[in-house]
């Protein structure tokens, strides 16, 4: 074990260029020791194959991570056990099989027209206001927020409240721990109230379906139901909203790719895959896992009890899998990226997020054909601060 483990994460969570340390580690030390801001050291795993192994091998546990609240982590407050993300099979399998049905490819296809309608309405509002406009508040954020709120059945009027609380939940240093905790409690309370309403008066929304899965089959506990709803609201907001802004920025900084996409909008689905691969959404990726047995990984022995960080961002930039990995290339023929994770925790919202991102790009390219950033350099851009996610809090655009 090296004594001078470097601090991790490498960057301050701003900028969309993956820090050079990852490339060096992939070449020299693909499984290496790093020092986390709180709770000690972990193994950082940087090769595509090893990351996929950590994410599928049952000897790496998510549950064990939250079972040891003072263990290595990115947040000052101890980890609290919450939601599907911190479960292992078979507990995890039971919940996923109950909730997955609402998110399958088929269900999402049926939602496309409604997503396109919401996106079209937002583009109308931008055109009506006229340039310049903030893409984040006028388009990138309201699109997934509206979709997830409609899906769950959360009243639209409550969405600003949600955004505040969800921001607080994903923050590491921006807010004191008490405030983060208070936000979690407030979200739980809100959801519990909404669940009571649906129980009394079921509607045609996902929350009503989930209440039914609890009440009729008694297979989802009350707490699981609330936690799951909170998890969905938070992840359903933040991720897709941030990536819409990031994608527009990346395309603006790669004008030849943007021109190719404008010339042939049929390329949008594969462009979205390439943008997902190339754009590191997490300042780090996902929650650390803990080895429950000794495991050998690229010649390094990981001891039972050690924390492991499978770097999705690094895997997506692995030169042995992606030719010219640092290049954004929407024509890439094969793209086995793992931006939505891999294995048991593979993103529940992946198909929904894909639909949202594709429709967002199509709508913006077609309705605002001259779309570009309103600032030339990066100096004026406002990055999200203290959050675990990389992206813009505002993105001024013109057309």
């Amino acid at each position, binding site marked *: 074990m090296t004594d001078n483990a470097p601090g991790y994460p490498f960057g301050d969570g701003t900028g969309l260029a993956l820090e050079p340390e990852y490339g060096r580690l992939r070449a020299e030390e693909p499984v290496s020791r790093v020092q986390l801001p709180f709770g000690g050291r972990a193994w950082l795993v940087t090769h595509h194959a090893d990351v996929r192994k950590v994410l599928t091998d049952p000897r790496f546990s998510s549950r064990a991570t939250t079972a040891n609240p003072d263990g290595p982590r990115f947040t000052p407050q101890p980890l609290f056990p919450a939601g599907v993300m911190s479960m292992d099979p078979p507990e995890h399998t039971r919940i996923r099989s109950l909730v997955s049905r609402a998110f399958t490819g088929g269900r999402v296809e049926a939602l496309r027209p409604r997503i396109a309608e919401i996106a079209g309405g937002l583009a109308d509002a931008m055109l009506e206001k006229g340039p310049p406009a903030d893409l984040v508040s006028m388009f990138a954020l309201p699109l997934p927020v509206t979709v997830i709120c409609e899906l769950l059945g959360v009243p639209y009027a409550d969405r600003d409240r949600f955004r505040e609380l969800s921001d607080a939940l994903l923050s590491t240093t921006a807010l004191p721990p008490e405030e983060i905790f208070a936000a979690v409690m407030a979200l739980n309370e809100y959801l519990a109230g909404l669940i009571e309403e649906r129980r009394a008066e079921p509607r045609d929304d996902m929350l009503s379906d989930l209440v039914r899965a609890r009440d009729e089959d008694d297979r989802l506990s009350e707490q699981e139901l609330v936690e799951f709803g909170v998890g969905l609201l938070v992840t359903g907001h933040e991720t897709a909203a941030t990536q819409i802004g990031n994608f527009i920025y990346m395309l603006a900084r790669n004008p030849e790719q943007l021109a190719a996409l404008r010339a042939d909008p049929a390329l949008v689905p594969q462009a979205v895959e390439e943008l997902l691969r190339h754009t590191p959404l997490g300042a780090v990726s996902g929650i650390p896992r803990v080895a429950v047995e000794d495991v050998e990984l690229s010649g390094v022995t990981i001891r039972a009890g050690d924390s492991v960080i499978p770097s999705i961002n690094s895997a997506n930039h692995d030169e042995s899998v992606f030719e010219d990995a640092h290049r954004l290339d929407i024509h890439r023929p094969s793209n086995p990226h793992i931006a939505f994770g891999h294995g*048991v925790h593979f993103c529940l919202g992946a198909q929904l997020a894909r639909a949202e991102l594709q429709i967002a790009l199509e709508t913006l390219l077609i309705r605002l054909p001259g779309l570009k950033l309103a600032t030339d350099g990066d100096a004026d851009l406002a990055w999200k601060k203290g959050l675990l996610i990389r992206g813009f809090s505002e993105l001024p655009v013109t057309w």
Partner: protein
Amino acid sequence: MSEANWKVEVTGACIASGMCVGTAPAYFELDGDRNRSVPRSARPAPDPLLLSVADSCPLEAIRVHDAGGTLLAPLD
């Protein structure tokens, strides 16, 4: 193999999410070359885990039938 064994297939809709492989490694493995999941056995003995996994696949790419050919999962 018993007469009562189920039939499991993974269709071309598979996107190699690894969900089934991580959840039920005894039943599925990833074919790296084709970048998709394949069942380790096409006719496994009945096991409710197979139904849960089929219900969890994000693309509904896993089809589980009983010996008589009735679709067991995924169901709407």
